[in-house]
């Protein structure tokens, strides 16, 4: 019991706990809620909580890029997708109980395996990264060491862009 109080005496731990709870519950609600807009909102909660976790890890740039792109742009884009298309507002409950049970069992197993594997992992202690200006470091890495994948990503985005236009454009008959 005392270890728990000790854990929560540090503000870093309290914040971590709250954010982890937010991330997990957002993901769970994303699956269990039945209305699409509610799902997206709970997904946004997950995105924001993850951003908070990144801040705890001293990765401010990644954190706010996450907020900007996922919580901001991606969420809104998905809402647009839903509001602009015809759809059944709420999905039906699944009708295959046996299928669901099998799925549940295998997911539990997967969780157990991952949990045990992470539980027994012991990593050598390392100095925490002194990331006073990690934005600059990220920028330098992107344009020097990782410039090839960086440029490939721009090609990838162009291709995806062309592809989405092909698929989505309404053409004259």
């Amino acid at each position, binding site marked *: 019991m005392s270890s728990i109080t000790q854990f929560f005496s540090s503000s870093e731990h309290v914040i971590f706990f709250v954010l982890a709870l937010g991330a997990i519950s957002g993901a769970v609600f994303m699956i269990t809620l039945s209305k699409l807009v509610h799902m997206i*909102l709970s997904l946004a909660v997950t995105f924001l909580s993850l951003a908070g976790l990144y801040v705890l890890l001293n990765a401010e740039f990644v954190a706010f890029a996450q907020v900007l792109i996922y*919580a*901001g742009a991606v969420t809104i884009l998905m809402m647009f997708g839903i509001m602009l298309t015809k759809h059944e507002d709420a999905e039906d409950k699944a009708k295959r109980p046996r299928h669901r049970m099998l799925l549940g069992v295998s997911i539990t197993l997967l969780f157990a395996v991952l949990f045990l594997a992470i539980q027994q992992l012991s990593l050598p202690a390392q100095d925490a990264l002194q990331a006073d200006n990690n934005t600059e470091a990220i920028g330098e890495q992107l344009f020097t060491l990782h410039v090839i994948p960086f440029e490939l990503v721009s090609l990838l985005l162009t291709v995806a862009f062309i592809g989405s236009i092909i698929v989505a454009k309404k053409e004259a008959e």
Partner: protein
Amino acid sequence: MTNWFEGSLTWGIFAMFAIWVIVLLLIVLGFVTYAIYYERKVIGWMQGRYGPNRVGPFGLLQTVADILKLLMKEDTIPAKADRVLFKLAPVIAFVPSFAVLAVIPYTETLVFANLNVGLLYFAALSSISTIGILLGGWASNNKYALLGGMRSGAQMISYEIPLIISVAGVILMSGSLNLGDIVKAQGNGFWQWNFIPQIIGFSVFIVASIAELNRTPFDLPEAESELVAGYHVEYSGFRFAFFMLAEYVYVYAIASLTTVLFLGGWKPLFPFLDFIPGIIWFIIKFLFVVFCLFWLRATLPRMRIDQLMGLGWKVLLPLSLANLFITAVVMEWFR
């Protein structure tokens, strides 16, 4: 910023945070109250009217009376609305607008959170407000509200891109995302402020920021004449007040940001005037920017939605990219 989390969480520290937050909230509320008064007075003056002049001396208590009226109104929720989201939407819209204020540096020392990615923080959080507006429009279950929400979402997403890219030139010049460092990189005297070398970026920023604020000439989301009142048509009472509050807090935030990024923050207009404290300079510039926003509202008509999208994607975005490119080339040239 990490030293916040390190230490242990005592009630003392918690209380200190809370007090600072409340102080900031009070300042902002005071600003909003008198910004509305200021706006009505300015517009009245430009239109040859008096503006509010009955409640209190010179009408100074007009907004207070309006707020009281709003708070006492009946709180209605449409029968077919999505109740949870309907209640949540104003909060989602307001909280980020208030949270972005934390990183604004008023003077060299007066800054609530000296974040090294302050600018990114500002851009990131302000994009969340759009979700609130979109949700508010959707949850009302009203076609005008939905249209307003969609327009607002489309507009804010489209203009966020040139807004951020136009600022990238400033980031290049000052080599930092920290708002305090950006001010420090500008000198005493207006010719050393960013708006001169970054004149293209500055113009794009001003236009895009007005669109982000949903103000005239870009106030399509709440165009009274075509959409009744846009996304908040079904809202009344204090929920409506929240939306309005969010809107005016963003006016405050954007005006501060313009001051910080382009107008030298707390730096004096001329070097020999630096005996005047920085906070005074900041407030003067800030009020000037706010005045310009109101001035635009009084003089410009509203745009059409297709013109709005065309302006964003075909004019502002290429301009801001060109600005970024020119800045980079020039900086490399004279390095």
